[in-house]
């Protein structure tokens, strides 16, 4: 996926002007946010489950090496193969080699953010394979030549009318906006491909170390078709997808589906424990799991580790006031929203994505929604500190904060500075308000007036009157 993180501000401003996108985002918020809240409330013990889910992920990530090795060993005993990919290029190469080795022509794909991350489709297509996305949302954006704008609802930015026109243009079907008809059109097309494909590529929602199983959570059943019909199944997982035990799965599933779509459980939960066995009636002949690092080990540092607890449920996107206003494409890479603002700089480099951790008010709505309580505001603060430490902030900002810190350590001078500011602003202030501020503060007055500095700041009022007033009225409060 092309990296457009540097253009965040331009992308965001364009998104704010895009009326269709704004409608789509309003629908998303009005739909997903209350559904999650109701579902979590109905659980009765959501807090307990979130705490438990966090503990499970914390344990898994703290002993990531052990659990990954255990998973790999179990899967190999079951007849599966494990491949370790350090980066996107290696992962792509592994998958292309497998395709060649098994004489593959046609590929069907279940929805997978990891394969978006490694830009797999374009690569396989270049190598001459036919690659088809089978999740409805992914199928739509593949037809449109776009990228996902949401982790679990990839085509959320498109309206029904846009999709109807797309189907009409690309599939040559009569134009219809009737949703059941539209899904039937997609289903008929996709079924053909499922039956003809020789390779199914899916993501992984959880990988269970104890049993060597991989778990797929879907609502359309396309994950199950992609992983059972073709003779070769390749699953691509970020290395953080591991959980220690099968017994951990119910907790993880509950927090995932309730947070993602407000469902008690998704329509399909598929546990795959090895390839087809001699007595099995169906299933792929071969199962290969590609375990992807691609920068994740850099997050293992104590201060950023919890970003690896992420289940990719999308709840933090839905509640984020930034995402709600600009949508996913503005973030410029695979992972949008608060978790994207943390993961993207960590995975692609701070240099390329310096805006993302800054473009947040640190309001904390994301942390409140996160099924594993990732402290996203603190992770953003950590990245901002990194930006300063590595001198990736403007010299002007650096100078201003140096001056500010100096002034704040000298209260007498600070008091004088307040008076000086109050005096200097007099020609410009109108009834206590300023209509324009000079750069670098001009951004404020682009849309808002700025309150003029008080002619008698609080410290002066205290000194002159308040401190002499003393306690008046009311009884004296003793402990």
């Amino acid at each position, binding site marked *: 996926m092309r990296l457009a993180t540097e253009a965040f*501000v331009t992308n965001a401003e364009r998104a704010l002007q895009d009326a269709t996108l704004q409608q789509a985002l309003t629908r998303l918020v009005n739909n997903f946010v209350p559904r999650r809240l109701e579902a979590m409330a109905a659980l009765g013990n959501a807090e307990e489950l979130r705490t438990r889910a966090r503990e499970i992920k914390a344990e898994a990530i703290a002993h990531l090496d052990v659990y990954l090795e255990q998973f790999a060993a179990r899967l190999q005993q079951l007849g599966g193969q494990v491949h370790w990919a350090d980066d996107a290029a290696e992962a792509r190469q592994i998958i292309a080699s497998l395709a060649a080795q098994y004489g593959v022509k046609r590929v069907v794909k279940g929805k997978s953010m990891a394969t978006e991350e490694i830009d797999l489709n374009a690569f396989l297509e270049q190598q001459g394979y036919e690659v088809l996305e089978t999740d409805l949302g992914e199928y739509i954006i593949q037809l449109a030549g776009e990228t996902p704008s949401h982790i679990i609802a990839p085509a959320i930015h498109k309206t029904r009318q846009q999709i109807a026109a797309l189907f009409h243009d690309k599939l040559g079907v009569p134009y219809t906006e009737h949703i059941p008809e539209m899904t039937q059109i997609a289903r008929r097309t996709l079924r053909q491909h499922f039956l003809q494909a020789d390779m199914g590529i899916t993501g992984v929602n959880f990988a269970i170390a104890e049993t060597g199983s991989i778990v797929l959570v879907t609502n359309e059943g396309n994950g199950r078709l992609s992983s059972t019909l073709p003779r070769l199944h390749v699953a691509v997982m970020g290395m953080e997808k591991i959980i220690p035990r099968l017994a951990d799965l119910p907790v993880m599933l509950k927090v995932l589906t309730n947070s993602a779509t407000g469902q008690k459980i998704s329509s399909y939960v598929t546990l795959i424990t090895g390839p087809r066995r001699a007595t099995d009636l169906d299933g792929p002949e071969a199962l290969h799991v590609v375990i992807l690092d691609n920068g994740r080990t850099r997050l293992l540092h104590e201060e950023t580790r919890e970003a690896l607890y992420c289940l990719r449920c999308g709840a933090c996107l839905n509640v984020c006031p930034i995402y709600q*206003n600009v949508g996913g494409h503005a973030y410029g890479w695979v992972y949008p929203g608060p978790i994207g603002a943390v993961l993207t700089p960590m995975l692609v480099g701070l240099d390329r994505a310096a805006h993302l951790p800054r473009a947040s*008010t640190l*309001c904390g709505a994301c942390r409140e929604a996160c099924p594993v309580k990732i402290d996203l505001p603190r992770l953003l603060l950590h990245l901002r500190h990194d*930006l300063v430490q590595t001198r990736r902030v403007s010299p002007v900002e650096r100078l201003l904060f140096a001056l500010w810190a100096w002034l704040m350590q000298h209260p007498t001078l600070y008091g004088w500075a307040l008076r000086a500011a109050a005096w200097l602003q007099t020609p410009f202030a109108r009834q206590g308000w300023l209509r324009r501020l000079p750069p670098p503060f001009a*951004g404020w007055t*682009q849309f808002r007036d700025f309150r003029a500095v008080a002619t008698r700041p609080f410290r002066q*009022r205290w000194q002159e009157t*308040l401190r002499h007033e003393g306690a008046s009225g009311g009884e004296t409060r003793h402990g």
Partner: protein
Amino acid sequence: MVSQSVPQRPWRVALFATCLVDAFCPEVGEATVRLLRRLGLQVDFPQAQTCCGQPAFNAGFRHQARAVARRNLEILAGYDYVVVPSGSCTAMLRCFTPELFADTPALAAQAQALAARTYELSEFLVRVVGVERIEATFAGKVAYHASCHLLRELGVKEEPRRLLAQVQGLELVPMELAEQCCGFGGTFAVKYPTLSDAMLRKKLAALQRAGADTLVSCDSGCLLHLAGRLHRQGEGIRVLHLAQVLQPTTEGP
């Protein structure tokens, strides 16, 4: 939640006024002092105070934040409580200052001691003082904006509403998106004005729908942001800090 080691003399309370109140809304500081005194508390304003250090901390300038925050460890020591008319600055003193000094045990201990004695105003009134009846009148339909740090860093949700409910003549009207960020975010509002304004407009649209004539919050940052847009639009909606509404009588703007 009254502290176990309650002193047998009038509580000595330090007001940490915050730099925004000091410079831009001194009337909020005055209202806070008078309110605390009416409750029989001994209030002091340690004059060496300036800022909690949050602007630098949030921008990633931890070294500068530490230099400013460190002064507060001494300036605010020796009081029974430190009361702050801001959720955000309370969060800085209570949650982030101890983090800043985590690697220096002596300072970390001081920071934790300060954190334990520091309260946001509404939280202090309800949880510590146990205020159940406030003699205040206010004529108006009030919408309450829950500021982010107050709500989600400090977990103070009902306290301001409980206090507002005690004000005679005040009608508290529900507002959609009451707990959604107004888009202030400190320097965010200056660095990303378009985004900030998009959030602000949603908030103000909700305020209009609520039919309130007054917006009340516990954070001057949000209030300056919201008031700045209302002033630009020429709207007559009053924007007040909680402390101002809890006065015996509140004057109009």
